């Protein structure tokens, strides 16, 4: 679609505009535009400029540390990493998901609903609502949650409290709001006490009401300017995510389903332990983030989107009544089998908030949540793969251990990584359709950030591999003049760039 904007030919003669950092996203990234003399965009890229390396430094550690170590990848969705790793290490102690004790399974689901609820609420109310309520090109002083609290106090406070509630669910199950311990190999280390259950039940009806209100709000915002919202940063893509065996929306455990832009099934009910047969990753020299794609469709056609839009697009229904009604309304608005509007990520995100709140209520009323049969144990295995639907999309954790229980290999495909190509395409779409040929101003550049923000990227999570990552070393003298430049390519080849 807009691939022609990935690399311009005559780069030296073009004017460079940089949005650095991209704000109100998790982690550090920047956008660069190269413009010709008529301000026509010739190249647009989203670069991820931070570097983590978790896959490497968890090697040599005992496997039971993994859920606690890898959740430090992120402060926003640590529970998702915690649980993806826990699902993988369950297999190392011989426990498949169907053999996990019922109470442990439900506690993990409750923990994860709390996680998705708080992360989505954080993203919508704290990070994105200023754009949606005040306009994409509004004054910079208005682009924060503080302005939302001042002008729309009711919405702002609901957002803060919804997020807090999700955090409280996490605290009750895992001991801390951020980076607790809950999941252990083969189960959980505690269940909910009656007092903890009752404490969470106190506010849940209010949370469901507010979540339903937020769905109504985003629908109103989206439909108030339908053509714009349906077109802005919109790209027609494949979608990938987990679903339940009957095709229902699933966040904790299911088979992989992928559909193409027309809603036709590419694959369905795939056992995620075989993900490597279906998904590969490509490295490009100008970013620390990899580009995953479906092997059957190849690098050019096989990239896909994950996250709330993918999940709501892919699933056949949602198993909680209010969220299902919201899904039906959402799908009906476009009239197509798949909704491709990038800004519809917000709408689907809030449908999921509603689903999480309804599901939390259901689980809190289930006596199994206070059960004491929490850990199972089987025969030791040497490889474990855990996949979960994190707030930002499908998250893969894959580990191998040796006979001494030490991790020898790790591979993580993080949700944001799967959206890498899509975010770049959306940036290029906005650059080509909304910015090209205009005199660039700061508010205009916020459009690029709005496009990226819709995906709710977590750039910290997405930059974890060591060894294959390209690096660039610049030697600059005291006046800022470039003296020397070394580039390490993804194949390990090092080149000196004296241009």
């Amino acid at each position, binding site marked *: 679609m807009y691939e022609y904007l990935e690399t311009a030919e005559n780069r030296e003669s073009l004017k460079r505009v940089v949005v650095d950092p991209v704000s109100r996203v998790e982690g550090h990234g920047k956008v660069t535009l190269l413009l010709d003399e008529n301000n026509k965009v010739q190249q647009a890229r989203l670069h991820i400029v931070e570097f983590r390396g978790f896959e490497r430094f968890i090697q040599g550690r005992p496997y039971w540390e993994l859920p*606690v170590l890898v959740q430090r990848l992120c402060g926003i969705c640590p529970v998702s990493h915690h649980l993806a790793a826990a699902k993988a290490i369950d297999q190392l102690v011989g426990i498949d998901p169907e053999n996990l004790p019922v109470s442990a399974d439900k506690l993990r689901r409750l923990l994860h609903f709390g996680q998705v609820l708080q992360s989505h609420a954080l993203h919508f109310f704290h990070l994105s609502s200023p754009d949606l309520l005040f306009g994409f090109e509004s004054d910079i002083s208005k682009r924060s949650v503080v302005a939302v609290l001042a002008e729309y106090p009711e919405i702002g406070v609901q957002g803060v409290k919804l997020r807090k509630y999700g955090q409280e669910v996490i605290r009750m199950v895992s001991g801390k709001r951020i980076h607790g311990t809950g999941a252990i190999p083969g189960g959980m280390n*505690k269940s909910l006490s009656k007092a903890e259950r009752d404490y969470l039940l106190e506010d849940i009806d209010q949370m469901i009401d507010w979540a339903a209100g937020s769905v109504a709000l985003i629908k109103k915002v989206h439909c108030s300017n339908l053509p714009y919202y349906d077109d802005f940063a919109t790209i027609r893509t494949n979608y990938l995510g987990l679903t339940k065996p009957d095709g229902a929306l699933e966040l904790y455990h299911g088979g992989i389903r992928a559909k193409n832009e027309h809603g036709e099934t590419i694959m369905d009910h795939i056992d995620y332990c075989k993900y490597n047969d279906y998904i590969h990753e490509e490295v490009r020299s100008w970013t620390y983030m990899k580009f995953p794609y479906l092997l059957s469709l190849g690098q050019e056609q096989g990239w896909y989107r994950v996250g709330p839009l993918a999940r709501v697009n892919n699933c056949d229904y949602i198993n909680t009544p209010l969220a299902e009604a919201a899904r039906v309304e959402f799908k009906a608005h476009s009239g197509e089998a798949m909704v491709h509007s990038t800004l519809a990520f917000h709408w689907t995100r809030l449908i999921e908030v509603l689903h999480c709140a309804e599901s939390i209520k259901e689980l809190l009323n289930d006596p199994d949540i206070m059960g004491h049969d929490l850990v199972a144990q089987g025969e030791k295995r040497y490889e474990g793969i855990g996949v979960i639907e994190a707030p930002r999309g499908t998250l893969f954790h894959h580990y191998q251990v040796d006979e001494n229980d030490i991790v020898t290999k790790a591979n993580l495909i993080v949700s944001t990584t799967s959206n890498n190509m899509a975010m770049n395409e959306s940036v290029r779409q906005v650059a080509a359709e909304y910015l090209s040929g205009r005199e660039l101003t700061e508010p205009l550049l916020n459009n690029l950030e709005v496009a990226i923000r819709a995906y709710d990227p977590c750039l910290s999570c997405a930059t974890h591999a060591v060894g294959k990552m390209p690096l660039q070393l610049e030697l600059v003298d005291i006046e800022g003049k470039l003296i020397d430049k070394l580039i390490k390519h993804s194949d390990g080849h090092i080149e000196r760039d004296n241009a």
Partner: protein
Amino acid sequence: MSKTITLDGKIIPFEDGQTIMDAAMAAGVYIPHLCHQPEFTPHGSCKLCTVKVNGRNCSACTFPAMDGQDVLSETEELINDRKKITQMLFVEGNHLCPGCEKTGNCQLQAVAYHLNMLDNHFPLFYPNREVDASHADVMIDQSRCILCTLCVRASQQKDGKDVFAVSGRGINKHLIVNAQSGLLKDTDLEATDHAAHICPTGAILIKRTGYRVPIGERIYDHKEIDQVSLETEHVKHGE
């Protein structure tokens, strides 16, 4: 008349053969320590229990109580020294509390909290130390060893074995095990041995048990180390 010492202005009794640490613990006064456990011969290596006896610095765990001694412990100078010693222990190894399975149950961490240690102060060494996971049920993470020798003493004095020792000098000092191969799997250590459970930090761990105790139920979640020490170590004292 029983014999007494003065500890921070308070007169406390002692019996012949008791150290200053013994007398203090019996009187319900906590003196910070890491290498000391009343059930084993005192070692005096961590120096956290340094007190001023009649104007001179001594290790409370090894120095005998004597009638009329004037002992100072909770002075600003000694508290600061203890904090510095703890900071040095942290920077010398790789003590990454957030991910460590001993967190909440770790005496080093608890002492640091007790001393209000808020940063490392000194530059971190980031030493490259090995993990020995060769044993079926016990592992050693040398990164967290503070050379307190409690495992050495527990193995000798309680288990009747000789599994652990300390080798090397200065910065190269390290824990070794009694096997030609240098591996824990080739020693006669068993997971039920006292030595496998005595480590005050996360250097010697029982495998596959990490994180089983939930947050809120760990040793130092609701009590500081002074209270825990006086409750648990004093009981052992009277046994």
